[in-house]
């Protein structure tokens, strides 16, 4: 590919515990790039370091050494307001437990990133309705999160993550709390968003089914990237089989 990568990760290390005490190295030098518009999955068993990695990439935690850039901007040293602005403008998050504010309606939850940037009121409503329409939740906008199903909640979360048209969308086990039907619908939705709007997506999961929707999968084990699997032109079902086979050998 000739395009410049949207995210570069260079020699990322993370060590827990202070020097002198018993230390634990969660990440042992991770290198990879994500191209613009790519749909990448990161797989690994519990404790493999995949959530730690995601937290570094998504500015939620700071690496011990190494660098991450998004849109050519180094992000590991961002602080305070710069960090907040970066989160609000450049990246979107979707979490396993939705992380919606149960005190606000779906509409208000989705609109929150815009109001944080003091977007003019006139622009907020059309923007929310547009993204809600794309995600098929237009009719639930006035509901509170506890009045929605898991799948609907996760769509609201996705809408909130997408409303600022971020450069990168991060997902941390987004299907983890969903039933299989909702999970499939959500992954289909991600695929559509990825293809139509060219949003780059990085997904952390241990679920082979969700992972099979990605174009490329990085397998992480004991804090290092062990293997990389590319879907290429294979169908999703075939890719799913490949992943299962790979997992079988990789985890041994």
């Amino acid at each position: 590919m000739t395009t410049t990568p949207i995210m570069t990760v260079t020699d990322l290390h993370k060590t827990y515990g202070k020097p002198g005490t018993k230390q634990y190295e969660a990440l042992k030098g991770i290198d990879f790039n994500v191209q613009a518009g790519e749909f990448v999955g990161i797989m690994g068993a519990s404790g493999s370091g995949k959530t730690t990695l995601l937290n570094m990439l998504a500015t939620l935690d700071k690496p011990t050494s190494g660098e991450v850039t998004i849109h050519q901007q180094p992000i590991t040293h961002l602080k305070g307001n710069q960090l907040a602005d970066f989160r609000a403008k450049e990246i979107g998050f979707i979490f396993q437990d939705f992380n919606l504010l149960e005190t606000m309606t779906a509409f208000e939850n989705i609109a929150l990133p815009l109001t944080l940037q003091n977007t003019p009121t006139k622009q907020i409503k059309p923007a929310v309705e547009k993204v809600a329409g794309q995600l098929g939740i237009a009719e639930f906008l006035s509901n509170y999160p506890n009045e929605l199903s898991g799948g609907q909640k996760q769509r609201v979360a996705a809408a909130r993550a997408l409303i600022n048209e971020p450069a990168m969308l991060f997902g941390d086990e987004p299907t983890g709390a969903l039933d299989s039907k909702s999970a499939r619908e959500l992954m289909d939705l991600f695929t559509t968003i990825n293809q139509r709007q060219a949003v780059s997506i990085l997904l952390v999961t241990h679920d082979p089914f969700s992972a099979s929707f990605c174009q490329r999968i990085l397998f992480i084990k004991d804090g290092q990237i062990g293997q990389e699997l590319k879907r290429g032109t294979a169908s999703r079902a075939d890719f799913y089989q490949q992943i299962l086979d790979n997992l079988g050998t990789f985890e041994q």
Partner: protein
Amino acid sequence: MLTKLAVSGLKHRWRDYLVLFSGLIMSSAIFYMFEALATNQAFLKQNTSISMVGFIFQFGSVLLTIITLVYISYANSFLLSMRKRDYGLFMLVGARKRKIGQLIWLETLLVGIIATLVGIIVGTALTAGISQLLINALGLSIHKLAAWYLPAALATLILYVGLFLLAGLFNLIALTKTPALKLLHSNDQPNRPQLKAGRQWAQIIIGLVSISIGYWAMANLGTLQLAGIGLALVTIVLGTYCLFNAIFVWLMVVLKRFAFAHRGLNGFTLSQLSFRIRNYTKMLSIVAMLFALALGAITVGMGFHRETPLMAKSSNAYDMGIVNMTKAEQSKVASLKPTEQTTYHFKTKQKTVFYRASEFNQHPYQTIKLESRNSLDATTQRLKATQLAKSQLRYQLMQLQTPAFQYTTPVFLSDAAYAKLAEPQNRLTIFVTDDVTAHLATFKQLVKSQSDRNPSIKTGVLGGRYSNYVMINGMYSGLEFMGLFLGIAFLAMLASCLMFKILSGANADQHRYQMLAKIGTTAHQQRSAIRKEIAVLFILPGIVGVIHVLFGLKMFSMLMVSSPYTGIWIPFLIFAGLYLIYYLITVNIYKRIVLQ
């Protein structure tokens, strides 16, 4: 084993328990403080001649009991929500319901008893400390006040332990009837704010009507007597609650429609408030009542304090009269820098005091006259001998005479007639300073040196502004003390109520603010959202409380000579300052919990 588990749970949540305990301790300490005054009949009788005060205290006790009831039910639900997960866990690992029931009962009761006992000790210390502070700072004369008063301690203990027994029973039923799984996930039950126009209007109307009845009752206490206080109490509590319920809900829903709700975290703050609306309305009505009681009590206390020197000032044009002043006394008087000093000569024969008219014509005697019965504004007039002999106001001169002649009418003689009297001549020196209250210590010495010479002279009977001041201060000290003491107590109760309520919600907010940080909220935005949310919770009851006080002060026009509204901004300002400090503390603690 289970007990061990329970204790370890306690260790892990010491921070929450700290909030719970400090809240309960404050509450019981204040209840004790109030009861220490209210149940001490000797103190009440000794310090006020107004019989109504006793009844006011009884009503106060009832009100405070109601407030305590609500407070404990909050504290209990806080305790319950804290322990639900743990108890659910115990059930999952197979603990028997009976055993868990015992544990809950024991824990609730233990928390209650420990908090109450500590509260009584704290209350005793507070009573001693605050009363000393007030007495010293204001120069009050207070008798028979005991910081440690057994009946008050018993009343506090019985009420609190009784309420905790009930609370324990409630917890027992609530927890053992709920399935284990539900206990594990019973964190949030959102409240969708509902706007039902009919109900809203009904509440507004009931609220307005009952508050106006209450205000009317307070204004007409003269005719309604005791029933008026009871009526006002019930109607104002009800009205405040209805209005808060109706208007608060409405306000939050309506405010969201404005453009400012779509800027920054304003929308989030409004949602936070409306989410907890039903919890808050009860607490806010109570806080508004406490605010009104505290502010009202302080205003009245300060009103009496302000009124004492004014009454003394308008009681006589002179500070003191001294018969046959000695040299030592003269130098003391000179040190006071009197603005006027006159000496009249007089002779006494049996029950008559004879003055020389010429002296009064040369230095006319200054009289003071109140403009009306309900005012302390006075006009002064200098009267010569013949005018003074005819004037009703001559009693002011009589007050300054030797105690033995205080009730005898002065007679003004011509110099010739005066000279014919064989009795020995005496001197009456009268003087006035710029401010009698500024020199109280010197005046006290003057009284002492006079009574040393003449044992019939004592503070109480010696006329003039100084002795009137001492007398009025003695009369008003009791009321002043009660007002300020209760004001401080109610303020502390208000503080712990509001703080408790707000802090008990802080844990739930922690994850909300963490989430806001993840989607790109700056720390500044978060802090300002916290400040705004808590400010609303402080300001709303404050406004209502101030309105209550403005109407409630009418009650005291019966007890006070001047309008209870004069100089009202001073206590209001002091109160606002305390309230602000208390707001800042709450915000800081909240920030520390939420933005870890």
